[in-house]
């Protein structure tokens, strides 16, 4: 069993856990923004910074992002300090200056005692805080359709020039990037990613998609690209992706009933 010190308390952890996971398991709150437990850690927002040290470090300490830093034996971790509060507030201040009108950042600012940013607001702000969740969810889905483009203050998220060639599961056709699954828009905390989704179809990242309907009731299921991609990615038969949950459930009941009836008569 491994153990480390968390805010002066000895806590146990399992190998491979991050400081954030250990803290959450011990109900120690650490603010996060770009973190999502289902996705790869990003370490971009720096809200989850904590201070780590060791007895043998002789007073030396460092500030690290809890979402990435691996828990280790005898580590001494502090999740609260004057310095940490100042740092997190400055980070929120910077985000608030970036997105001064965005409800999400305004609410975040309020949580950190900032009615408005003390810094110069961005000249032409949009709602993107560059948390990278959309890019990571797209990669997790396996579409790799969007990525960060450009650098520094000019950075933005969007579809790249060419389909990326990496991390695509072998055997999968080089999908035309966006599959219209809307995961990026779903995960976006600020609602920056705009899309249309109605009976006629879907529209996102400048692409239009047809929507496949349930073979029985006509309820919308998803785009053909999405269903094909997920079938290929999971190794499931494409037949699995033909019906909505309600119709499948009814089908199951009927099949069940048939079987029971069949057994009853034989």
């Amino acid at each position, binding site marked *: 069993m491994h153990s480390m010190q968390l805010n002066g308390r000895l806590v146990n952890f399992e190998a491979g856990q991050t400081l954030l996971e250990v803290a959450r398991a011990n109900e120690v709150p650490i603010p996060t923004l770009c973190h*999502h*437990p*289902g*996705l790869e850690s990003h370490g971009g927002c720096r809200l989850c910074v904590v201070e780590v040290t060791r007895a043998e470090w002789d007073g030396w300490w460092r500030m690290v992002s809890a979402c990435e830093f691996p828990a280790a034996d005898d580590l001494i971790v502090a999740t609260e300090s004057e310095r940490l509060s100042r740092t997190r507030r400055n980070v929120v201040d910077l985000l608030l200056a970036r997105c001064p009108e965005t409800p999400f950042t305004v609410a975040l600012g309020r949580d950190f005692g900032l009615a408005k940013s003390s810094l110069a607001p961005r000249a032409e702000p949009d709602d993107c805080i560059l948390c990278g969740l959309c890019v990571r*969810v797209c990669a*997790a*889905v*396996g579409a790799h359709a969007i990525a960060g483009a450009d650098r520094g203050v000019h950075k933005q998220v969007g579809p790249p020039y060419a389909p990326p060639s990496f991390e695509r599961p072998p055997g999968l056709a080089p999908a035309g990037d966006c599959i219209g*699954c809307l*995961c990026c828009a*779903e*995960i976006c905390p600020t609602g920056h990613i705009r899309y249309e989704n109605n009976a006629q179809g879907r529209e996102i990242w400048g692409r239009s998609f047809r929507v496949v309907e349930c073979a029985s009731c006509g309820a919308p*299921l*998803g785009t053909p690209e*999405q*269903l094909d991609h*997920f079938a290929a*990615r*999971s*190794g*499931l038969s494409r*037949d*699995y*992706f033909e*019906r*909505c*949950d*309600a*119709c*499948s*459930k*009814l*089908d*199951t*009941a*009927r*099949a*069940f*009933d048939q*079987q*029971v*009836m069949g*057994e*009853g008569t034989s």
Partner: protein
Amino acid sequence: MSEAKRLFVTPGRCIGCRGCEIACAFAHPVRRPGGHRPSDQPGKSRIRTFPMSAERHVPVVCLQCEEAACQAVCPTGALQRNEASGAIEVLTERCVRCMMCVVACPFGNVHDEPAMREIVKCDLCGGDPACAKFCPTAALEYAVRPTRNPPPKPLHSVAGGTRGQMAGAVSTTGPSVR
């Protein structure tokens, strides 16, 4: 080590009272998006009973397939088996709501819950399924093996050893994915 309990469905005993649906809904109250405080509102029932005729009713609920399509399709590992209860559970914090498990389940046992912005499915109530407790006729039983004897032949006996009893019954589109 004792044998694991399973949820047995015996349609022949079902009287279509739909008590299971109500039990399920109340056992899974709606949580506010983002928060975790349960409200008084009942949630979406994971089990549903279908009338096939005046006498015949079929309850359909997830049978926690051995090799589950929902789990295979999930891009973020948000569907994980709880080894204690045997249920495949949705780890909501890992879920990105791509909806693929909803479409991929050939039995229609994974659902989107728009009110909570969550994906829901039968979690066997963590090992004490409310539906089975409320079922007056033992059409739903959570046990090592079905207990009461009379009515027709219990359906699960056709499937050997897997958790997916119902899957065995509809073997043409069985849940085994590979």
